């Protein structure tokens, strides 16, 4: 499991715009760099990120080899109901990680 840092407010008012910020530990190896032995290192990147809120997809992103290691994402969502925010990263070599945070909407 990769280490992640997630910043989501635990509670919010209905209709509020809340920021979500995520940082995940990943080498994002481009597939173009030679290693110490001169051989090109195989690509190993995160391909896709999705965020669902209360069962509905609210944000997604396609990643490319040009994205830096340990990618940081920042986006916003508008709160409707209390529910889980599910963050999912998927990538090469079967990389998959899911993190869930609950938001309480008053």
């Amino acid at each position, binding site marked *: 499991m990769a*280490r992640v*840092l*997630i910043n989501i407010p635990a509670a919010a008012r209905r209709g509020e715009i809340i920021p979500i910020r995520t*940082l995940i*530990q990943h080498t994002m190896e481009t597939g173009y760099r030679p290693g110490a032995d001169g051989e090109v290192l195989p690509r190993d990147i995160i391909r896709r990120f999705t965020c669902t809120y209360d069962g509905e997809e609210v944000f997604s992103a396609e990643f490319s080899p040009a994205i*830096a*290691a340990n990618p940081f994402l920042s986006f916003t969502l508008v709160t409707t109901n209390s529910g889980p925010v599910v963050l999912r990263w998927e990538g090469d070599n079967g990389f998959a990680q899911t993190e869930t945070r609950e938001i309480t909407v008053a």
Partner: protein
Amino acid sequence: MKRALPILLLAPLCLSASAQERRSGFENMARDTQAMQTDDTANPGMLWVLEGQSLWHQPAGPAAQSCASCHQNTEVSMRGVAARYPAWDEASAAPIDLAGRIAQCRETRQGAPPLARESQGLLSLSAYVGNQSRGLPIAPPADPRMDAAREQGRALYTARRGQLDLSCAQCHDDNAGRRLAGSTIPQAHPTGYPLYRLEWQTLGSLQRRLRGCMTGVRAEPFAYGASEYVAIEAFLASRAQGMALETPAVRP
């Protein structure tokens, strides 16, 4: 008053880094990069701190002891420790840096497989221990046995080396604050190690940074963990005495 005037006029001409106000490399950074460091949820170095925290509590070796088994209550027991290193090591009768101490403790006390320099495990543990001292002033020990290493460090810092025939001091004392290509030359105060360098795309130690400078002037770098590196670290710590630790810092 009149007599003081010529001296005041001359002063700006003979400023060196030692006479300048000491500045952490943090102050040379763009505001975005500073924000990245100060926000713990945006600072990638915190990923290694988290990793270090889990390693700290993970039993290792035949006796299944973790770091936390001895050093309980880490926030208290490890507070200020990183600010004191490099320090004198009784066992080897030589100066030792924080990463060296962690590796030594792991090998001799826990009996666990040794952690290599720049390995993720050692960097993570160093970052976790370093993070406990964040905000504290760098406080090199007054131990007179460290003096020889500090002197050796000063000599290494001021000696010209490599095909470019440059010493550390020529950039970081004589020309600190000026620009080398697009970057401001920092004063070389080791306030945030191990730190996340955007160029490296990962966390790295002070020794890795020193190694980078040495290959930059086309000198042969020392091996990781060499006594020369520890001596330079000890000298830099005495030079940065009193400056606040920022571990894990972010640098461009």
